[in-house]
């Protein structure tokens, strides 16, 4: 995909920005039709995000799992796999972290926190590897298996929580002790639930970049993703790479779950329906053009819009569903850049001769 490179080529940095603008305009139009005031709505959206240190911190909290799941989906894409299963991998990651944090709550923090993080990542990775293994060994399309594994993960997590860690009379696990939590800078953000996971998410993006483009294993993975036959010819083990790619993808997703538990909630709920982190991840990955740094940017955009949407409905009475229309439109315009270029043509872009590919 040379889309990413294109973005950094001067006139292309402008296209995503205009896409965002157009998306907001579509949202405004829909608001006007519904009889709402779009200017107020967007004003309150921004206010909700940057109005107070607390809200700013909460926005960061909102963005963090999006980075992880976005990276997860993007990493799989880069290796030629469509991981619809980040959702389940998040849940499994949560569950493993919760289990570790509650089972060994006596351990000191410096040991318990890393253990719980590792458990979450590993569990997410292994769960994803099931789909990878079935693809590699039996040629079973990962789209189906990951969908099925999502539901399986939902019920499996509920089973673990309800049968081993349930807080009596509640619909959630017991509380995770302070020794297993990862909050930081809480006071700076007026007790917003900011946690170390954000830093680790950014590191994960850097890892993604370095791994895929700077290491030999990443080179293999990209080769397998782009042309598995040639990879095989060159002596790479396609099956192993598929499993490995799913594993790493699952680790990212698992970590999203981990930090929701030990960073944000400090307990795990019994879910009646999937929390949907993974599906957000698909949108974030695609919006970020499957590039790690693109994912970070798109997670920020996505997080800001979703967190800010409450401000919109609070301040301007706009139904919160509207934000989905805005996000959908932005993705639409970013994907269909042709439209944006068309809109821009009279203003900026010199007509390009024949676009290749």
């Amino acid at each position: 995909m040379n889309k990413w490179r294109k973005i950094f080529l001067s006139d292309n940095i402008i296209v995503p920005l205009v896409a965002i603008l157009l998306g907001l305009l579509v949202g405004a139009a829909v608001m006007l039709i519904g009889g709402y005031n779009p200017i107020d709505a967007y004003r309150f959206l921004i206010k909700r995000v940057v109005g107070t240190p607390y809200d700013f911190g909460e926005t960061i909290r909102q963005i963090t799992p999006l980075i992880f799941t976005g990276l997860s989906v993007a990493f799989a894409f880069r290796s030629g796999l469509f991981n619809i299963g980040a959702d389940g991998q998040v849940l499994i990651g949560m569950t493993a972290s919760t289990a570790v944090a509650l089972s060994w709550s006596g351990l000191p923090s410096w040991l318990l926190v890393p253990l719980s993080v590792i458990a979450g990542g590993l569990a997410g990775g292994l769960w994803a590897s099931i789909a990878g293994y079935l693809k590699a060994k039996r040629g079973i399309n990962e789209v189906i298996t990951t969908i099925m594994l999502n539901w399986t993960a939902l019920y499996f997590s509920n089973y673990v929580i309800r049968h081993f860690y349930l807080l009596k009379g509640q619909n959630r696990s017991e509380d995770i002790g302070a020794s297993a939590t990862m909050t930081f800078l809480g006071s700076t953000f007026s007790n917003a639930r900011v946690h170390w996971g954000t830093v680790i998410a950014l590191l994960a993006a850097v890892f993604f970049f370095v791994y895929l483009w700077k290491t030999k294993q990443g080179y293999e993975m990209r080769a397998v993703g782009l042309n598995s036959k040639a990879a095989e010819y060159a002596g790479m083990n396609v099956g192993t790479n598929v499993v490995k790619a799913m594993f790493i993808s699952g680790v990212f997703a698992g970590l999203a779950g981990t930090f929701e538990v030990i960073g944000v909630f400090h307990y795990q709920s019994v879910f009646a329906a999937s929390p949907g982190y993974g599906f957000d991840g698909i949108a974030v990955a695609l919006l970020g053009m499957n590039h790690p740094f693109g994912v970070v940017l798109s997670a920020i955009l996505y997080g800001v819009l979703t967190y800010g949407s409450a401000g919109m409905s609070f301040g301007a009475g706009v139904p919160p569903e509207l934000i989905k229309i805005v996000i959908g439109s932005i993705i639409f315009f970013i994907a269909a850049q042709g439209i944006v270029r068309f809109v821009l043509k009279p203003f900026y872009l010199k007509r390009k001769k024949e676009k290749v590919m």
Partner: protein
Amino acid sequence: MDVLTLLGQLLNSTLVFSTALIFSALGGIFSEKSGVINIGLEGLMIFGAFAAGVGTYYAQEAGMGNWSPWIGIIAAIIVGVLGSLIHAVAAITFKADQTISGIVINFLAAGLTVYIVKLLFEGSAETPLIHAFQKKAIPLLRDIPVIGEGFFNAYPTTYLALILVALSYFVLFKTPFGLRLRSVGEYPGAADTLGVNVTRMRYIGVLISGALAGIGGATITLTTTSTFAHNTISGQGYIAIAAMIFGKWNPVGALGAAMFFGFSQAIRNYVQLFEWSKSIPQEFIFMIPYVLTIIVLVSAVGRSAAPSALGTSYDPGKR
């Protein structure tokens, strides 16, 4: 209860769940056979469920009585087609990544439908209840053992689904249209050089998928919920995608896969009727359909045969 009656009832129950999947999976097939990935089935189903809810309601208000659900179906087709048009424009005309533009549909559908419902019904997030379809038994066929109870005492939509499976198979594999549609999904370059209009065929494929997934969504409103709300469709679109792949992009295969999902769903419910099931943790019972699917995939179904050009936009200048 004897085994045959039971089987008939299980089958009947199976169809409740599978009918919507059949429509939507068929829709997916038309789109993907033409080479356009349709991850937006979920959104298209939402559009359909919404249109059926609203359309049927207004038809009833207008005094159309028993015809109202059919108006709902037509509304679902129209709205489904309009929704898929967005996908088509982005993915085909503007050569956007097909997965992305499918996701766009999911977002827009989830947002727009609830937003419009709120505007139409004074803030209510749910459409008013409607008189939905009723089951109709087919006189003679109904008396066939097992099959009769299983298939021929069903909703009109179920019959429609079965007819559409046959029709889709026929259209895809016996008509010039089908040949062209498939050629465009396999090798658009070849089709183009023979004068087949790749863009047009793909548009048609995607729009048909909008119509069919729309009916799929409508089925849920018109036979199971009688109302449309934000969670009327929650994941069925993805299961339909799974059914389409499981069925190897073949209408009959998709029918089988959809029935299989429905059946494992029915099994999972059926198990709960027995006292002994109480000793099994509930969550494991809930897992049955999904785990069963994976097991069947592992043991029975081999590699899937996606259309070769699936996911690629067509550019005659591309080498």
